[in-house]
């Protein structure tokens, strides 16, 4: 009997602890009715600054380990674009279409909470170069240039890593925007050992996302952003204020749905040209692996 089987749509979510609310998440998306399943990897302490080393061209070892574990990379190559006979055999055994994977990075919140926020603490505020409904407090202002420079220093290596990923054939990479910070002042003080008012913290996250979004767009990638759904009056909605750092799984699901909403309409990117080349050669009676074998001997 020929039984029709259904497979899930995997979304690979990797990064700091903001990848955790996606763990074991499965839901049916509204566009095709397919099951979306999050494959997550939590890399403790990873920051935008140490995601990628532009000087050596090397990624964080745990990131590469995750890509290898999930079968997305083998011997430093994106397996979905491989014309290697080994990867062809693996795809044949899997028995499913080979398409560019959907990957989302959750990286950057530690950078904001750590070195950047320390410029402000409870003593300063700043005026961002974009409109915001959040107030300017009666505190000395740190010039935007300094904030901009601090964010830039953290984002530059991250953006270089994204560019490297695109060059390696990963063009369906999404970056989760930093989620609106908690309103729980006491919890924040406990975590950071210093105070910083929620309006300043939130504005800083907006500033980081503003710059992150521009960098991500310049690489033809997408930043996943559901700010309007996660906030009310400019601040994190109480129902998403979870443990003082992360959004709860229902907030993460909103973000993942945002990714799906974009991905369903960017399916121009799903055609696997190397696989078509192999198929076309085989249909023409050619052996696409023969040349590689001849070169090897």
């Amino acid at each position: 009997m020929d039984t029709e089987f259904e497979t899930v749509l995997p979304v690979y979510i990797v990064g700091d602890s903001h990848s955790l609310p996606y763990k074991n998440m499965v839901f049916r998306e509204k566009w095709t009715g397919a099951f979306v399943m999050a494959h997550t990897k939590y890399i403790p302490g990873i920051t935008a600054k140490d995601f990628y080393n532009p000087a050596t061209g090397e990624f964080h070892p745990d990131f590469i380990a995750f890509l290898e574990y999930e079968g997305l990379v083998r011997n430093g190559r994106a397996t979905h674009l491989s014309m290697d006979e080994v990867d062809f055999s693996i795809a044949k055994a899997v028995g499913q279409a080979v398409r560019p994977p959907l990957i989302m990075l959750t990286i950057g919140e530690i950078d904001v909470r750590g070195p950047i926020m320390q410029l402000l603490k409870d003593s300063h505020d700043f005026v961002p170069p974009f409109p915001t409904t959040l107030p300017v407090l009666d505190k000395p202002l740190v010039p935007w240039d300094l904030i901009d420079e601090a964010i830039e220093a953290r984002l530059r290596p991250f953006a270089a890593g994204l560019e490297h990923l695109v060059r390696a054939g990963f063009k369906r990479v999404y970056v989760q925007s930093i989620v609106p910070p908690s309103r729980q002042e006491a919890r924040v003080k406990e975590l950071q050992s210093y105070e910083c008012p929620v309006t300043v913290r939130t504005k800083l996250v907006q500033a980081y996302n503003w710059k992150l979004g521009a960098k991500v767009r310049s690489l033809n990638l997408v930043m996943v952003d559901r700010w309007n759904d996660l906030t009310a009056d400019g601040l994190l909605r109480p129902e998403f204020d979870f443990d003082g750092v992360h959004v709860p799984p229902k907030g993460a699901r909103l973000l993942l749905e945002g990714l799906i909403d974009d991905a369903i309409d960017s399916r121009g990117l799903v055609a696997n040209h190397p696989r078509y080349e192999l198929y076309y050669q085989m249909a023409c009676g050619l052996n696409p692996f023969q040349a590689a074998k001849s070169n090897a001997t």
Partner: protein
Amino acid sequence: MAVGSMIRTATQRLKGGVNQALGALGYQLVRTETLGGLSGFFEPAPPSAAGVESRPAAVQPRRLTLLPAANAAPAMCTAHAPKFDPQKTPSQLADKIVEFQQNGVTVISTNPEKAATFRETESFDRDVSNRHSAWDWAGNSVAPYTKDLQTGIPSAALLDYLHGLFSGGDFDSFFRGVLGCPAQVANVRLVRSLPHETAGVGPQEWHSDGCPAGVIRGVLYLCDVDTQTGPFQYRDAGGKEHTVLGKTGDLLVFDATRLMHRGSPPSHKTRSAIDLVFMPRMPGEDMKIMVVGMNHWPADPFFVKLPKERAADQEAVAGRATSLY
């Protein structure tokens, strides 16, 4: 000799002592070579050419860089077709094969009465929203991108007709000539272009399709197409613009990646046509005709699963996520 023996004995005693101490903590000293052998035993080796069985392999340090890889459409989609020689391979459509190979486009007359009948009997009753969206298919957006185009699902009668037409000897030899292999139909899509004065969008703009290797396009006119009906236009290798007028039943076959092209916006009359996507077929496989709505081609030609159609969901389309930035 005596000194060497003493050193060996001392080394053995030292190892024994360290092992004893580590053993109390649940650890053991293992030589590097032994560890390599053990890791190789547990680590699956790269699959063999014939399958995916594992064999022992040496442990290699993890590469932390990624090598460049491209996922780009070829410059032309029929690169593996040998140069056609009408003397060696006689064909009713030999001149069309030669013309396609030279120019990337050709026009073949098919039954005009049949085409006229389908113009009247087919239902162009849908907008161009993609109701067959699927993760394994490249295709248009969920929401309609224009109101100047209407589409519809082809009838069983039309599909039967096309199956017979493209399975016939003439077209079989034609596709073998232009592609170098047999073809199948990856999509049949009804398209009605309404007259309008605004600039064309989507297929009515100059564009290249970025088709994968072996994928070529076809347009079967269901009406006469003159300059007011929005004829097909393309630019040749030298950039010269060509307009292809046609009669009911004319079938244009073209390399949509090699040639910049468009269906020009009809100024006064409605154009009815059938859009076709042809892709390679493995020798020995039967001709298939797929209907996948506003999709283009499968993501991976080795594993093709037909997408399911879903009911129009205006609420879902309208409720798209918006960005603050």
